[in-house]
């Protein structure tokens, strides 16, 4: 079971969180004309890398904040966690 550092609460066990998928996906702006292909990419297509992955976790049984977690998908090593709106270099 992973041990995830929530930037709001501290280190907590994985069972307090819900997984939220790729954190690098950006929703197209409202009222913007976009092609089927672009929309399709946003709704359905996700990369599933082996190695570093920036992903969303929702601290659902804690502070209810969505956070971003940089995790290695093969070793589960967590490098860093970020608040939802924190800028990631």
């Amino acid at each position, binding site marked *: 079971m992973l*041990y995830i550092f929530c930037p709001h609460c501290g280190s907590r066990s994985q069972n307090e969180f819900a997984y939220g998928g790729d954190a690098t996906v950006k*929703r197209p702006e409202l009222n913007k004309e976009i092609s089927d292909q672009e929309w399709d990419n*946003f709704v359905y297509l996700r990369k599933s890398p082996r190695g570093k992955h920036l992903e969303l976790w929702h601290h659902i049984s804690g502070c209810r904040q969505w956070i971003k977690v940089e995790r290695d998908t093969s070793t589960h090593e967590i490098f860093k966690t970020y608040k939802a709106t924190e800028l990631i270099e």
Partner: protein
Amino acid sequence: MSQDFRLDNVGMVNRNKKISFIFNGKKYSGYEGDTIASALIANGVHLVGRSFKYHRPRGFFGVGVDEPYAILQLERNNERDPNIRATEQEIFEGLEVKSVNCWPSVNFDIGAINNFLKMFFPAGFYYKTFMWPPSFWYKIYEPFIRMAAGFGEASIKHDKERYEHKYEYCDLLIAGSGPSGLASAYAAAKNGARVILAEDKPRYGGSLLTSDVNIGNQTGVEWSEKIITELKSMSNVIVKNRSQVFGYYDHNMLVMSERIGDHLPKTQKYLPKQRLWYIRAKEVLISSGSIERPLVFGNNDTPGVMLSSAAKEYMKVYGVLVGKKPLIFTNNDSGYETAIEFKKNGVSPLVLDTRKEPSSDIITEAKNLGIETKFSYVVVAAKGYKKVKSADIAKISDNKKDLSNIENIECDCICVSGFWTPSIHLASQSGNKSEFDEKIDAFIPKKSKQKENTIGSANGKFTLEETINEAFDKGYEVSNKITENNNKVSIPTVVEKKSTEHDKFWCVPLPKGKSYKRFLDFQNDVAVTDIELALREGFRSIEHVKRYTTLGMATDQGKTSNLNGLQLVSDIENKVVPQVGHTTFRPPYTPVSIGAIVGREVGKHSKPTRKSPMHEWHEKNNAVFVDAGVWLRPRYYKQGNETLFEASKREAKNVRKNVGVCDVTTLGKIDVKGPDAAEFLNRVYTNAWLKLPVGKARYGVMLREDGIVMDDGTTTRISENHYHMTTTTAQAANVLSHLEYYLQLVWPELNVNVVSTTEQWAGAAIAGPNSRALLMKLFPNTDVSNEGLPFMGYKEADLSGISAKIYRISFSGELAYEVNVESDFGNFMWEKIIEVGKEFQIQPYGTEALSTLRIEMGHVAGSELDGRTIPHDASLEGLVSKKKDFIGKRSLSRSAFTKPDREKIVGVVPLDKTTSIPEGSYIVKDPNAKLPNPKLGHVSASCWSVEYDNPFSLAIIKDGKKMIGQKLFAMSPLKNKTIPVEIVSSHYVDPEGKRVRA
């Protein structure tokens, strides 16, 4: 039976407490502190089971977790508990155990015929033998195999024992309380670290309990007792015996099972049988020790052949002799320790040492004690069927290939020692890739992936001095990383006998003309010939060889067999062991009972049950409950002998005719607040929200980004920047997460907050033509007329001194209101409504009547919004704004969602007006069409229309609008029904919606 093999005044069992127990129907006695194994051996019993494949007699091989043979079935508190290791289970008064895998009895087992048919049971025989004809598989082969195989029977009764889970955090978890575990725990604890020390056995000390050593001028036993006593007295240390750390998971999470009541006759009240510990440790020290390796020779599975270390432990810990004429067969110095122990207890052993001319302290001591020793000697084969009676021994040539001077000597047990295998299981589970150490012919942990270190003999250190020094250092070093106390304790001096190198020899060749079975895996009956065959047949990867031959599988996971198997494969392949590699170790290290894994989360405890504040009233009024998500809701209120069907019809009719009240507390409620709340709702819902006035409610539909309907409900504008959103019971949690996602990640610039208020409000839906009259009496100070409180209106009101909120919304399609009060007043409100409603013929109604009412009105619910429908399919397209953008809008213009014959919701009525249509039925054109019959759609919900007194269903079918008026068929292959039906509008009752506005 008397304990003929019990020694006087030796061992650690409590001689003052005699305990009797039953094995295979016969009564035996032992002492408190005995295991089943030690007590049976004391009574001279060595036949305890039959082997898996050949049903050969099975005795005891080890003394702990490594035991491959003595698997028994325990009867306790009238329940069966299979897969009990006799070497671990302690006896208690009244304990009942029996042998498994034998019929009719362990002494006379019909399955033993397999032993004589063994040429028909080679490796992979399941794959080869039971292939044809295919129809034989489930009728003949499978039942036969199932009867013949397995280690005992699981109980099918509800397990009444209690199992608990515990979560614990510590600086340092130490697995194993042998010399390295004790030393490192002591060093770390003295340095201020929070330590958990876990020991699998009842007694602490590990090898110190049986070895003849001296630490700090004390015997090993005295030293370990002193250390444990001190550790127990420290507030920063948790010491647990009978506790197996069996799994090493991610981020230093380890799981340990503590056997609390397994050794007690009856579970004490409030005391669990077992407790599962989830331990998050900053650092882990694995001090799990090592397991002695067997030597491979003919019939080496005969009862009476056992590990030499086990024989020693039976003597020193339990005061029990495993035999009175022992033969000791060793390739290293360890066998001599056992020989000396025998001699000290008045039994003269014969030692066969495979080495040519070894010399060390302990060999000299054995000689001085007059122990007879033969060098360059081996056991060729054990003789005897149910117990060792003698052994063929021989001189072995220097190249270990040829046997000479074969002779038969009498003996009643053969104690084998093929050197030691470190228990690297936990390290391996943590991700540590092991390396082969040629000095000890075994794998040891290499580079840590997680925060773990392996110490002591688990790390291949076999001298006590090395072990103690390393453990004290590691305990300090690891703890100091955390505490930085720099408090180092001094390391005691160690006195032990120097030993010499072991012989790299492990398998005795067969003498000419003999074909003895030489077993590698004792639990699964895998012999040398099986591995040879697998390799001849082309299996190369050790993982494949394992699965083909079953080497190292089953409940002991090859603790005694793995390395010998690897040696054999590498010998045949002319490789070295590291090239062959070893199979993956996976948790659990030892079997864990399912009960412990499940813990308290069984039955109703598997998830929390939520009840509304009016629950007690429902119970008192004969409500029959149904699970609705995590909630319990009244399904119907039973009157007399009513069935569900009769009761729900009565309740629904009463709503249509008079007035009914339904508990709607379970609906999800979310407070949406902030200056941008209107804008946010406008983006979340498909319809327009910017112009909703204060004091008005609106029905809304929200989509996922893929265009599928996520949820629906009404949201009311309480004040300028405050909205009260309702969701369906089932989707409440998902909707909240969904809203939080958009507010926190997508549109953080919106100034809006959301919070769940589901539990804060109790709700009652009052529905029916009499509802307004009832409301007028309930709220005499509030204008609830059609003008004062129009459809979709909202008002705050006073309910006999309590503040209430009235929403004029309707799910039943009748004139209806939902009244909310703070949860604490829920029951007060409910009783008031019932009391005031009496004169209006009020009746409570449950979810079944609620469903009936909404189905015949054509209102959609979860069965239509099932994660596959877009607004069009549920006839909600009128609520989809063309002007503004919202979540999921772009998906609605995708080609599949705009097809002209897209599915749409319709009503379905059976032509005979009497046959109910099963939910899930397919709608087809021609019931006799060739299968698979092309499906137009499916029936999503069915009810008995109380308005028209005939069955009515909703269905979602292709091009539904055009189908209205057509005569089709509803087919349910599951119920074997084909019903001619007519397609009608989904709005079966009051299609103009006059009633809700009345």
